[in-house]
């Protein structure tokens, strides 16, 4: 049917119309059908709706996606290529190639075997990950969607979707491709979408179809749809779309308002009918997906330096050996036949000593190749993977039961970086504070209502030694967003207050002046509010609880169920006609609604920041004004977020004349926004103040305690927030960041001098002046800080700086001073900062001070900061995934940082350090025994050990125990790690991976290798059993190897802080593996064409001497280590060692019992927040009333045609996508 409909013969008319309308733009479609395939013009694409055949020649890409890196064919070449991009692997590849030449003293197996095992392990990991991606893709590709076929909806998998198909999407389904919105079951062709997957915003957005297409809803109607879409080529800009729909010879312009992007989902709409425009990889979301640049930990970069040092060591060793060889070769050693050098082996030609030197160089490189620990990277990767997947992700201490969120390590690269963090940059809202706005107090007509005590007030009181008891009335309402208790105005009691009319106005203002959407059943218990910010929904919820229940919104009216207005207990439904909505934006800082009462009265309700409202109040009634101002300050100091409410009665004539101007401004094409602001200004004046609201932005659980612990751990915390300076300082006080003993430096742009200059309005002058001021301030503060340091008894310092000053302070000329000052402070608070500034501050400390930084945040505005820091942590579990998607670790609560850093980070750091150093030690020791042997062989490069011994040394005999240490070693238990946060300082100072530590390890390597070689070497000369027979080279080397394996494994136990069963098993197993191997191998080695070590181990074991050596050598080798460790612990103990000793008689962690305990003993407050969290989630966005939040987009903004500014991260992403886009376009 579809085919028939699309065919030219069955529908000549439509085809004709299409052709004629497009004649001037592209060749008629018939030519295409005749087989002359015309490539589509690159600047736009033409889509024939509901006509697969016409679309066929263009060959749009299918809708199946593939995010896999490899396929069956490319896996091996591409995977190997990826592996050989690592220097260590490439090095071993070249060594392996070199060892196939006669120049090599070792057979290729020595290097090929470890290399191939390493490659195998990496490839298996890659394959597994890719397989998971593939399965994921398959699951997505096989999701079902309804497509119009033969006049009915047919369910097909997503991957079968083609451009031009007509698709039905039902409620809560995801859009399978980028779609053009045609028709909706909603009355006026609108639908609501959620874009959480795209930008992390969970507020609903409205999309509106073109009026012309509203009818194509049912299958018979939809199959008649024969539109043609001309639109831009696929691109990655999420917020733009240009195109036209050509329908019945009419060209209708399309805007982003009609486009539904893949990844979003449909909400609040039964179903919609759409046309596919972009499919698969051409959808905007897919074109936006890019790999986040992977971060490498600082320790790993240091490790690179260590490897480089090893390369230098290797070179020096080879050079020494090669020089020796060149000097050694001499014809006098006639038994070597150096006079008759055969072809191809000029390595020992005494006549060309330079060549000898060069060739021996290569020989020795292959011989000593084991200096470079090839399996190090793989082992570390494996350890870190298990650390993150098993330990961090599954830690019950970091599981948040209220939101059902465990911790998530999104990368395993940075585990040990967590153990070295020195600076934490934290967002405030949603991170330090709960993402929970609760209506807490209000002031109506000069009277304060609400008994609540904020955590901040309590904190202040506690510091002053007072205890505040909070009285709650037994029937106080408990609801998310409403934590208010005052019987004076609840349940209609406000009627008995001194000014009930003002109360009524206050409640009506709350119920009417907002942009909230109700959702669900229209009953007070079940309704849900969709709000742009939780503050707004808190206000509407408050109105509901005061008896003004807003339950329905139409484009023109708001319905409110008002109780107790006429008399107590009486309820009536009132509809207010909404005439105008004057939107929030960052300059206006207020929002107004003009409404018409049922009785025809015109009222403007306005709410906004105190500063802007107070400016616009009508004269008179100064009493309320002053009282309210007083209350505002009171609320502010309690850490509450305040808003002023006001109203104004409008005269119909005045309104009409204003409305004309408004409509004019609304339809103007240029500077629409500015004009709208100006028009709004005309009506928003002469307001009457009603009162103000106070919303509590609750502190997250356990934040103050966590911050105190982190500060004790030597971590400095910087708070970067968009809030006002006072709020920020309040929060900083509340969470213990700043206290009264600290010396505070405040650099603010809110000084009289600056304001004065600003009022003059000369931008250049303002900039110059502020910069000078900032410079002066900085200098003063720095000098003061310096003087404190000089006097010795320095108080702790804190710096508070606001965004505007920060802008100038970040100027290259002042940056050094700012950094200097900042680094000397214990706490820094930056307020009123933009997302970009957050990132700038972070990278200033990261790059300027070379300190390890961690950023933690929960919102889209923290993304840049999270990406800029060494470690990015996202707060998960609440709304918004943007920060989590950009982060390296995601935790549910700020307080889990304590576990993440002090426990997991510290252990990871400790373990990785140990693993690296141990690898370094064991490989160096092993290679050095070879090196000493070289001196005894005339520098010929003769190998000391059998090939298989050498190749399995790293792979089997010493591989597993070190991994066990990397997983299980812990110096002190988790609870002690948190009890003594100062232990963390060892990580900050990098105490365990300094060059000094490396040097100690190197010293022991040299010492031990000398012991191995020379102690075992003495066995060469005399008989070793009563038979008088003499050992040969391979007997000696096997004995030495046995000693090395045993010692190196035992040495591991010596560096362990805790020894589990697995340590014993792995260490014992490794030694046992060596013996089993050598027993078998020495019997069957002749099968491999080599009989050097034939029967050697049995010969050795037939002598007493062997056992005596086996006891002597490991003890003598470890003797030095043991003395070192004993002396170090006795005389120069590390802090963790003292803590170990203090608690050595305590049992292990109490474990599970303790955990359960924690969960069962919820405090009252926790119980309440738990109860609230169990309530059905209200979808909201948390950026709050900070009007300049970047993610702000109103529901109505698009309706009234206000341009929604592109998001900061979208811009950033597009910049980085530029090059890729070009490639796409070129194709």
């Amino acid at each position, binding site marked *: 049917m579809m085919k028939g409909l699309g065919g030219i013969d069955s529908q000549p008319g439509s085809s004709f119309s299409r052709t004629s309308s497009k004649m001037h733009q592209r060749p008629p479609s018939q030519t295409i059908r005749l087989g002359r395939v015309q490539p589509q013009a690159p600047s736009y694409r033409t889509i024939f709706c509901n006509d697969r055949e016409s679309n066929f020649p263009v060959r749009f890409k299918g809708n199946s996606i593939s995010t896999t890196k490899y396929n069956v064919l490319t896996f091996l070449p591409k995977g190997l290529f990826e592996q050989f991009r690592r220097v260590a692997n490439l090095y071993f590849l070249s060594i392996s190639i070199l060892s196939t030449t006669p120049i090599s003293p070792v057979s290729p197996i020595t290097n090929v075997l470890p290399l191939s095992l390493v490659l195998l392990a990496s490839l298996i990991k890659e394959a597994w990950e890719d397989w998971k991606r593939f399965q994921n893709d398959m699951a997505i590709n096989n999701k079902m969607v309804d497509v119009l076929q033969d006049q009915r909806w047919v369910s097909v998998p997503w991957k079968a979707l083609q451009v031009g198909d007509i698709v039905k999407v039902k409620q809560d389904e995801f859009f399978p491709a980028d779609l053009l919105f045609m028709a909706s079951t909603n009355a006026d062709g609108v639908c609501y979408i959620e874009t959480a997957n795209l930008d992390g915003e969970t507020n609903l957005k409205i999309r509106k179809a073109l009026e012309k297409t509203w009818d194509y809803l049912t299958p018979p109607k939809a199959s008649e749809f024969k539109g043609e879409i001309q639109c831009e080529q696929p691109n990655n800009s999420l917020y733009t779309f240009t195109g036209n729909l050509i329908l019945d010879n009419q060209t209708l312009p399309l805007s982003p308002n009609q486009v539904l992007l893949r990844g979003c989902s449909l909400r609040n709409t039964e179903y919609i009918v759409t046309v596919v425009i972009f499919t698969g990889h051409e959808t905007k979301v897919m074109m936006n997906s890019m790999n986040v640049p992977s971060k490498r930990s600082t320790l790993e970069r240091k490790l690179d330096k260590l490897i480089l040092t090893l390369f230098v060591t290797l070179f020096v060793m080879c050079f020494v050996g090669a020089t020796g060889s060149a000097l050694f070769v*001499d014809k006098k050693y006639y038994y070597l036949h150096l006079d008759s*050098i055969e072809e191809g082996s000029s390595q020992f030609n005494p006549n060309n000593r330079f060549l000898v030197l060069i060739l021996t160089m290569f020989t020795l490189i292959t011989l000593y190749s084991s200096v470079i620990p090839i399996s190090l990277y793989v082992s570390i990767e494996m350890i870190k993977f298990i650390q993150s997947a098993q330990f961090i992700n599954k830690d019950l201490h970091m599981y948040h039961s209220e939101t059902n969120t465990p911790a998530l390590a999104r990368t395993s690269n940075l585990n040990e970086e967590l153990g070295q963090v020195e600076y934490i940059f934290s967002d405030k809202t949603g991170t330090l504070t709960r993402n929970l706005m609760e209506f807490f107090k209000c002031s109506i007509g000069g009277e304060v209502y609400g008994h609540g005590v904020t955590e901040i007030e309590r904190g202040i009181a506690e510091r002053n030694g007072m205890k505040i008891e909070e009285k709650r009335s037994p029937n106080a309402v408990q609801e998310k967003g409403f934590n208010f208790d005052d019987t004076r105005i609840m349940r209609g009691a406000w009627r008995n207050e001194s000014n009930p009319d003002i109360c009524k106005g206050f409640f009506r203002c709350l119920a009417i002046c907002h942009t909230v959407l109700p959702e669900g059943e229209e009953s007070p218990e079940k309704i849900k509010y969709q709000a742009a910010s939780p503050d707004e929904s808190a206000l509407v919820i408050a109105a509901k609880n005061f008896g003004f229940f807003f339950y329905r919104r139409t484009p023109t009216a708001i319905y409110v169920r008002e109780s107790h207005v006429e008399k107590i207990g009486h309820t009536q439904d009132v509809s207010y006609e909404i005439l105008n909505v004057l939107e929030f934006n960052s300059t206006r800082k207020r929002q107004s609604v003009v409404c018409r009462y049922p009785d025809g009265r015109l009222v403007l309700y306005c709410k906004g920041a105190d500063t802007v409202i107070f400016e616009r109040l009508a004269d008179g009634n100064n009493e309320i004004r002053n009282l309210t101002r007083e209350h505002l300050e009171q609320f502010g100091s309690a850490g509450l977020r305040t808003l002023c409410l006001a109203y104004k009665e409008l005269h119909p004539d005045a309104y009409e004349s204003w409305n004309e101007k408004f409509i004019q401004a609304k339809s103007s094409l240029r500077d629409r926004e500015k004009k709208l602001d100006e028009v709004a200004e005309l009506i928003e004046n002469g307001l009457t103040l009603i009162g103000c609201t106070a919303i509590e932005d609750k502190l997250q659980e356990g934040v103050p305690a966590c911050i105190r612990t982190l500060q004790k751990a030597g971590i400095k915390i910087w708070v970067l927030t968009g809030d006002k300076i006072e709020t920020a300082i309040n929060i900083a006080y509340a969470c213990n960041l700043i206290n009264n003993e600290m010396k505070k430096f405040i650099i603010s742009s809110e000084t009289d001098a600056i304001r004065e200059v600003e009022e003059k309005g000369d931008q250049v002058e303002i900039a110059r002046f502020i910069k000078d001021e900032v410079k002066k301030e900085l200098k003063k503060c720095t000098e003061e800080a310096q003087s404190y340091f000089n006097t010795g008894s320095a108080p702790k310092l804190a710096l508070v700086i606001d965004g505007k000053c920060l802008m100038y302070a970040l100027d290259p000329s002042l940056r050094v001073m700012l950094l200097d000052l900042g680094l000397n402070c214990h706490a820094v608070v930056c307020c009123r900062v933009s997302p970009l500034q957050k990132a700038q501050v972070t990278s200033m400390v990261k790059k300027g001070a070379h300190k390890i930084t961690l950023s933690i945040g929960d919102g889209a505005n923290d993304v840049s900061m999270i990406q800029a820091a060494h470690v990015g942590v996202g707060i998960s579990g609440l709304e918004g995934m943007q920060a989590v998607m950009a982060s390296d670790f995601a935790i549910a609560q700020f307080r889990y940082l304590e576990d993440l850093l002090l426990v997991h980070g510290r252990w990871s750091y400790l373990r990785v350090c140990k693993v690296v150093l141990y690898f370094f030690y064991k490989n160096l020791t092993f290679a050095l025994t070879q090196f000493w042997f070289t001196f005894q*062989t005339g520098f010929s490069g003769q190998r000391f050990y059998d090939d298989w011994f050498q190749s399995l040394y790293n792979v089997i005999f010493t591989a597993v125990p070190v991994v066990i240490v990397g997983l299980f070693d812990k110096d002190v238990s988790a609870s002690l790690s948190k009890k003594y946060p100062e232990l963390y300082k060892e990580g900050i100072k990098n105490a365990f991976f300094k060059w000094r530590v490396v040097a100690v390890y190197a010293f022991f390597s040299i010492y031990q290798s000398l012991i191995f070689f020379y102690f075992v070497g003495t066995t060469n000369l005399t008989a070793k059993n009563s038979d008088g027979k003499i050992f040969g080279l391979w007997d000696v080397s096997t004995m030495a190897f046995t000693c090395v394996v045993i010692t190196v494994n035992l040495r591991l136990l010596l560096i362990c802080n805790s020894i*589990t069963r697995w340590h014993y098993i792995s260490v014992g197993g490794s030694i046992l593996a060596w013996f089993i191997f050598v027993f078998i191998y020495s019997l069957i080695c002749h099968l491999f064409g080599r009989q050097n070590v034939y*029967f050697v181990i049995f010969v050795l074991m037939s002598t*007493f001497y062997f056992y005596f050596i086996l006891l*002597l050598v490991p003890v003598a080798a470890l003797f030095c280590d043991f003395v070192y460790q004993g002396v170090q612990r006795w005389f120069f103990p590390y*802090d963790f060692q003292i803590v170990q000793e203090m608690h050595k008689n305590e049992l292990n962690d109490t474990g599970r019992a303790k955990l359960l305990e924690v969960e069962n003993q919820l405090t009252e407050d926790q119980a309440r927040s738990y109860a609230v969290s169990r309530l059905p989630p209200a979808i909201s966005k948390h950026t709050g009333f900070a009007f300049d939040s970047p993610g702000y987009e109103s529901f109505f903004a698009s309706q009234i045609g206000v341009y929604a500014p592109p998001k900061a991260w979208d811009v950033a992403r597009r910049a980085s996508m530029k090059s890729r886009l070009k490639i796409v376009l070129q194709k």
Partner: protein
Amino acid sequence: MSSSSAAAFGSADSTAARRNTKRPKYSKFTQQELPACKPILTPRAVISVFLLVSVVFVPVGVASLLASRKVVEIIHRYDAECIPQSNSSDKVAYIQNPSADKTCNITLNVHKHMKSPIHVYYQLDNFYQNHRRYVKSRNDEQLRDSEKWDSTSGCKPEDMANGKPIVPCGLIAWSLFNDTYIFSRNNKNLTVNKKGISWKSDRDHKFGKDVFPKNFQNGSIIGGARLNDSIPVSIYVNNNYQCMYEIYGSPLFFYEQLSQQEDLIVWMRTAALPTFRKLYGKIEVDLNEGDTISVILKNNYNTYSFSGKKKLVLSTTGWLGGKNDFLGIAYLTVGGLCFFLAMAFTIIYFVKPRQLGDPSYLSWNRNPGGH
């Protein structure tokens, strides 16, 4: 009734919640609470470990030193004295002169009773048997398998002589040591048993019983000993008679098979270090204190080119092998050091003890408020 329904509701709710929960399951592994012992090197532990080591090591050291002391060893360096005075200016020329008389008489005095078997070794010095070019210059297959007589890979330059493959090929075999010693006491010959001087595994598995030397030392330069052809033939090669005849020309005369050439087998178990001893044979009678042994020595082997020493060693063996004080001294040293350290630590422990787990040692307590 109502309470029971509420309970039922509650349980249904909780099971549903449990099913949906992302709460990680508890396990000792994931919570990192595996039972572990936490060894702490407390002073007491350190001292006891030192004491333990010294308690074990000192007796072992004494025992091995005694075992070594019981071994009687006579070492006689003869490379210099066995050059006639007239040739001392050019030792190399003398040793390379095939017509010169290499016989040399030396006498050894037995200073202590030597119990049989007395092992006769020769010791070479500055001889790099472990040189890479030397070590690999052999062909194991050829030595083991008579079929592979012509495989001489790795043997260059001693792989072919006169166009035919050499068995055994390679530098090691080519440079076989060829000094010989004839011992006599009071003009009575002391028999030197040259059987069983090599490791059995070498004889049985590395050198074939049906592999015979061919074309050996037939090259332009003779590096060392020819193989011994005077050992009676002990194995007849069945059904190969004809073949052998054709190859060697004489039906009555056989070269000895390699597995019986113990001098070669000993020589080919290359030494680990450039100074080494090789077993020459065994004297199976006791030598008494004061005996004078005269040795008729054929000084054939050239160590003069590279100024290597040659020594003749007569040694008895104990249960720990030949005379070697190293092991005893090493044990005693380590044991003694441990004992000394144990004492030293004990003194410090009593004189200036460090209280375990003293919080004042914590860095943040030592310099409070420090940066």
